[in-house]
């Protein structure tokens, strides 16, 4: 019958009390919370980017480019090794992943394999194919390892670059095999961050070939070992340069970089400093090639091509392109953070301005309060006293949703708020089911106590089945959704579960306590 053991009463009230306590930290700022006593919960829910404003970026790392680079390395290694051993070969090349070569003389084949096996990385497979052809392939494990490393390095570099912009609490995570999610709350200038994140920023030092572009044009061909590179500044007088292919020194060896103003000219330049090894190499280059022109390439366009006036032994130098203050600063940031191991693409971008976020919070609050009051009023009009019991459940349901969200430090989004408001409307369902059932039992002539007892018993199975099917939809939504939609699935799922608790435990307890105290002869429902 209607028995509620004492421990059960304590359990229900403690849950309700806890739900209130866990809501409290959300009213305080992050710094105020640290001064709370140790036993007090400090978990808060987070505001989604759609509520606090900010940028969400989905990036794809071109991991294949690293494999391609490695494949080109194989080609180079094979060429050098076979030439050294004077083994004749043909058709050496790479088609994206891996490489192939054909040995000319049959007698030299085994010798070639032996040498190459020694030279090449262990993870590269050497396979004999038809007609003295050798295939060089990567093991799947190697490819996977390379991909993982590339993505992880990219995340590192992106994190450094984002940190340089002073973004608070960025969230940068790997997603799937080759993707990175970057979440930047409260961003002021998303365009700048995007341009910073998206650039590979490979800095290379080459020598400029003395041949001018005009001369090469007259001759109809470029000098051997050189290639044409565009000027990064399309408005400059020199549109293109002929650059020697060999990379003398790369940005990996940089220790520091900063944007400064050159005192003589008042122009913005980027001052850089090499690490020890880089400095030694730079000294050697500048000593051997004094009076030649150095080409500084960033992502394959020339940003500066100064003449080496004297050997630079201190490992320090300036890049003086035609920089605006911002451009000089950005370049310094990029050089400090290092280059990305592979190019990245921005697949998806969602930026919400701070004003919309504030408006959304405001309208969400209003909708919640009005929705709540209307439902409460309606329940009272329909069920009078029992409506009040149900309304207490609605309010605690709200506390439970917010406290659970805080406990798991979940993210509240605008659709998430909609989910909460919707839950207010839907959460009364369990109580409605019970009340309607009690009413039916009363109409069939049962006593109030009997009717209440039967009402809860009969409605329980219905409530369970009905809510589990709804929960199935909510959980699949969570699995599918991204960002804001996921927030909706979270609040809806929590709401469904907590509404079952409040209806079947809390309201029931209130009803029982009331029945025991009043011992009503008639119930009006």
């Amino acid at each position: 019958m209607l028995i509620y053991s004492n421990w059960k009463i304590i359990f229900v009230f403690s849950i309700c009390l806890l739900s209130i306590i866990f809501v409290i930290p959300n009213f305080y700022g992050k710094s105020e919370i640290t001064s709370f006593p140790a036993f007090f919960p400090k978990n808060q829910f987070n505001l989604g980017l759609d509520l606090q404003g900010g940028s969400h970026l989905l990036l794809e790392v071109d991991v294949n480019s690293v494999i391609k680079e490695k494949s080109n390395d194989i080609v180079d290694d094979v060429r050098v090794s076979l030439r050294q051993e004077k083994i004749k070969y043909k058709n050496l090349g790479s088609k994206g992943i891996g490489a192939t070569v054909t040995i000319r003389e049959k007698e030299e084949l085994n010798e070639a394999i032996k040498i190459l096996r020694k030279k090449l990385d262990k993870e590269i497979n050497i396979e004999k194919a038809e007609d003295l052809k050798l295939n060089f392939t990567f093991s799947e494990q190697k490819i996977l390892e390379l991909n993982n490393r590339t993505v992880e390095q990219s995340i590192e570099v992106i994190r450094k670059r984002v940190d340089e912009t002073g973004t608070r609490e960025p969230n940068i995570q790997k997603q799937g095999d080759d993707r990175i999610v970057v979440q930047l709350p409260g961003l002021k200038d998303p365009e700048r961050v995007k341009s910073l994140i998206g650039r590979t920023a490979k800095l290379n030092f080459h020598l400029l070939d003395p041949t001018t572009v005009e001369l090469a044009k007259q001759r109809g061909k470029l000098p051997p070992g050189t290639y044409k590179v565009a000027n990064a500044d399309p408005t400059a007088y020199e549109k293109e340069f002929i650059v020697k292919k060999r990379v003398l020194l790369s940005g990996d060896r940089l220790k520091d970089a900063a944007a400064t103003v050159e005192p003589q000219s008042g122009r913005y330049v980027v001052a850089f400093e090499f690490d020890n090894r880089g400095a030694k190499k730079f000294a050697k280059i500048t000593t051997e090639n004094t009076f030649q022109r150095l080409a500084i390439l960033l992502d394959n366009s020339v940003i500066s091509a100064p003449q080496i006036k004297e050997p630079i032994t201190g490992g320090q130098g300036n890049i003086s392109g035609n920089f605006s203050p911002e451009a000089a600063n950005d370049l310094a940031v990029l050089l400090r953070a290092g280059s990305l191991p592979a190019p990245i693409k921005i697949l998806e971008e969602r930026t919400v301005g701070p004003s919309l976020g504030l408006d959304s919070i405001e309208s969400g609050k209003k909708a919640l309060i009005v929705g709540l009051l209307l439902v409460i009023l309606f329940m009272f009009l329909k069920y009078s006293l029992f409506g009040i019991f149900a309304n207490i459940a609605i309010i605690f349901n709200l506390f439970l949703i917010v406290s659970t969200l805080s406990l798991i430090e979940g993210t509240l989004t605008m659709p998430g708020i909609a989910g909460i408001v919707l839950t207010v409307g839907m959460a009364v369902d369990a109580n409605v089911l019970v009340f309607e059932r009690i009413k039916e039992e009363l109409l069939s002539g049962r006593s109030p106590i009997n009717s209440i007892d039967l009402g809860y018993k009969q409605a329980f199975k219905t409530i369970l089945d009905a809510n589990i099917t709804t929960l199935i939809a909510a959980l699949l939504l969570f699995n599918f959704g991204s960002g804001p939609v996921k927030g909706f699935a979270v609040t809806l799922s929590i709401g469904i579960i907590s509404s079952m608790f409040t209806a079947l435990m809390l309201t029931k307890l209130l009803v029982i306590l009331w029945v025991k105290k009043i011992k009503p002869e008639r119930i009006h429902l």
Partner: protein
Amino acid sequence: MKPILNISQNFNFNFFSIRNISFVFSIILILLSIVFVLKKNLNFGIDFIGGIMIDAKFTSPPDLDILRADINNLSLGNYEIQEFGSPDNILIKIEKQPGDESKQLEAIKKVKEILPENVDYRRIEYVGPKVGKELKVMGFKAVFFSLLAMFIYIWFRFDGWQFGLGAVIAVIHDVITTVGFFAITQIEFNLASIAAILTIAGYSINDTVVVFDRIRENITKVNDLSFIKLLNKSINETLSRTIMTSLTTLIALMALIVLGGQVISGFIIAMIWGVLIGTYSSIFIAASLISLLGYKSKNNK
């Protein structure tokens, strides 16, 4: 204390006498939905087809014709300009630019350049075609698997595939007509729309399960009724609850549509439709389907 609002408890409608009418009505709704989806197509948001969306708030309502001409001059392909909530809030949608991602960022920059300095950019979104395709597949999968999971759960709990299939057909009916609703109203179909569809599916199945649950109970309890009458009795007995829950849910949705802001309004309008159609299908379609599918109970005279 007596309740102030007192909806009558003893409903006794004969839903089965109008069964044919409701079936015809539903079939017409479904056909209409399909025709509209095929003819008018869904107004896909950039979530699914890729492209650029800029939501900008002006200090005073801009002249849309001038804005259109300005954007036209940029020759960025297909574009769409509309008011969003208020005359000073403008939504600009531009199709995906040919070329790689940097072209998209360039296009956003170009649009920003022609808009006044003091415009407040509320939202800027860009979705690449690759992601769009993935989201489409994921959305379809989510709807499909949730229907499958519901079917299996109800089948097991109710000891008869007719219950599972009946409930799922009723939900599919709701899903198709909701998609049709998006096609007819041309409300943007985006990620939130998938969320709406799944929530509607969850809501509708919830309603249906309550009715089915009563049918299951009555099968074991009531012996002197034909199966049709038993179904009818079950619907009537649960009717006041069905109406009550729909009403409270609609109240909450009304609060959201009036006060919740423009960003989620499409989602909420779809939800309102979904609650109405879900309630309708639970009352008029789901139970009828069980008998139509040939469920035989021991008192099926």
